[in-house]
């Protein structure tokens, strides 16, 4: 499908782009009608009314992380070559990709959504179940979308900050993505004997991927809870704007 779209001549591309633009407009209008009154996309105000409870959860998760996850992740990094770990990351990234694809469509980004369909098909087939990232080699871009970002684009307020045991930092707006990304992950529909060991592998691999980042955090933070919270909120805004946060959002920060 992707091949046909990107290799069928400039006229076809123009027609597809026009259709996509119209669909995007229609989606935007529907979204505006549904969510009239909300206009806080990417707002950076940190709303943390549950700070005391969140801090408790953060501390207990941190203890579990230090005693269980970090040693497991460090052993994993030591024992497995980088190429194998990359294959594991690619495999799980591909399993989660239907969520990205659907959310691009829900945000009215149809060109990106169609590109994601192509990416998913290429990596699942040529990439042997997603182990090899053939799509990136074919210059099909990778996107990072979720239902929390979709709700932000639809104008839903971010709500309060939450620190969820096992899952980490969230906002109220982002929590429905837990259900959506779970239901759209093929792993959810496999027998328990497959799902449990693969989920454990996913968790260890994911922890290994962010070992350096958490080391940097621990080195930089005076208050790790506040550091994690604020960095997370800013990172979410960055993702909502697809990496192009308007500079006007920063003006107030410097105008004291």
């Amino acid at each position: 499908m992707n091949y046909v779209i990107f290799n069928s001549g400039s006229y076809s591309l123009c027609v597809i782009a026009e259709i996509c633009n119209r669909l995007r407009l229609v989606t935007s209008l529907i979204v505006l009608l549904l969510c009239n009154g909300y206009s806080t996309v990417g707002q950076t105000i940190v709303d943390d009314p549950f700070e005391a409870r969140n801090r408790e959860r953060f501390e207990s998760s941190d203890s579990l992380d230090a005693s269980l996850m970090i040693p497991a992740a460090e052993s994993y990094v030591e024992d497995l070559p980088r190429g194998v770990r990359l294959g594991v990351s690619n495999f799980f990234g591909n399993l989660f990709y239907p969520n990205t694809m659907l959310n691009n469509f829900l945000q009215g980004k149809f060109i990106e959504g169609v590109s994601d369909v192509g990416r998913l098909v290429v990596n699942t087939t040529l990439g042997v179940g997603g182990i090899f990232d053939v799509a990136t080699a074919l210059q099909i871009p990778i996107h990072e979308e979720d239902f929390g970002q979709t709700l932000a684009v639809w104008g839903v307020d971010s709500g309060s900050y939450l620190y969820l045991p096992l899952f980490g930092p969230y906002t109220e707006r982002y929590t429905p993505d837990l259900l959506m990304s779970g239901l759209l992950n093929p792993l959810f529909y496999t027998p328990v004997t497959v799902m449990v060991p693969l989920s454990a592998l996913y968790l260890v691999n994911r922890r290994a991927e962010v070992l350096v980042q958490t080391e940097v955090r621990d080195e930089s933070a005076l208050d790790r809870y506040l550091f994690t919270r604020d960095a997370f909120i800013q990172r979410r805004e960055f993702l909502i704007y697809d990496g192009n946060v308007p500079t006007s959002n920063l003006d107030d920060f410097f105008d004291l």
Partner: protein
Amino acid sequence: MQWKLRPDTTDLKMIRQQISRLLVVSVALLGGSVKADEQAVASVDEFHGLLLEVMQAGDALGFQDRKARLKTMVSQKFDMETIGNVVLNRHWRDLSQQQQQSFIEQFIDLSSATYASRFDNYSQQQFQTLGFESMSAGRVMVRTEITSPTMTTVKLDYILQPDDSSWKIIAAIADGVNDLAVKRTEYTAIMNAGGFDQLLAELTAQTQALNGSQ
């Protein structure tokens, strides 16, 4: 009153002169603006150049030498007065001049140690300048990225403002995370709880931890 359908030669000459002046002023303004933006980009490029040098020298240079070289650059290229004002927010104005100076010195030391710790080896990293964008109050955002064959590409945006004859960095934003915004939350909480002395003590301890871990 006499109406002229066509301007005479004197009028035409005056109009031409006005247009010429307007063009000169516009070109001068445009040229000045481009030059200023280019200076901001050059300032970031110079900072990246030193980071690359320090990374390439890596272990051969050692932590203390890396830190010393970076400290000079951080002092020159970062507007610490503005950073102090931003990061301590309303508390900045309540500090004495001596306290402000102590904070700036400690912050430079901590920033240099942090850079020396993070940029300690070279894995074919490359800095690329992607462009710049004008902001309010004459500030400029310079958009860059750091790429490496073994790392995910990281977007690094710098905000600069003019200071006398040079452009100075007032914030660095990595993949959307503004380090100063995070620090402002942390520092404000510490200032509210224990005051300036506690903040300075914690910054000193953090710098010593970085120095000692190398």
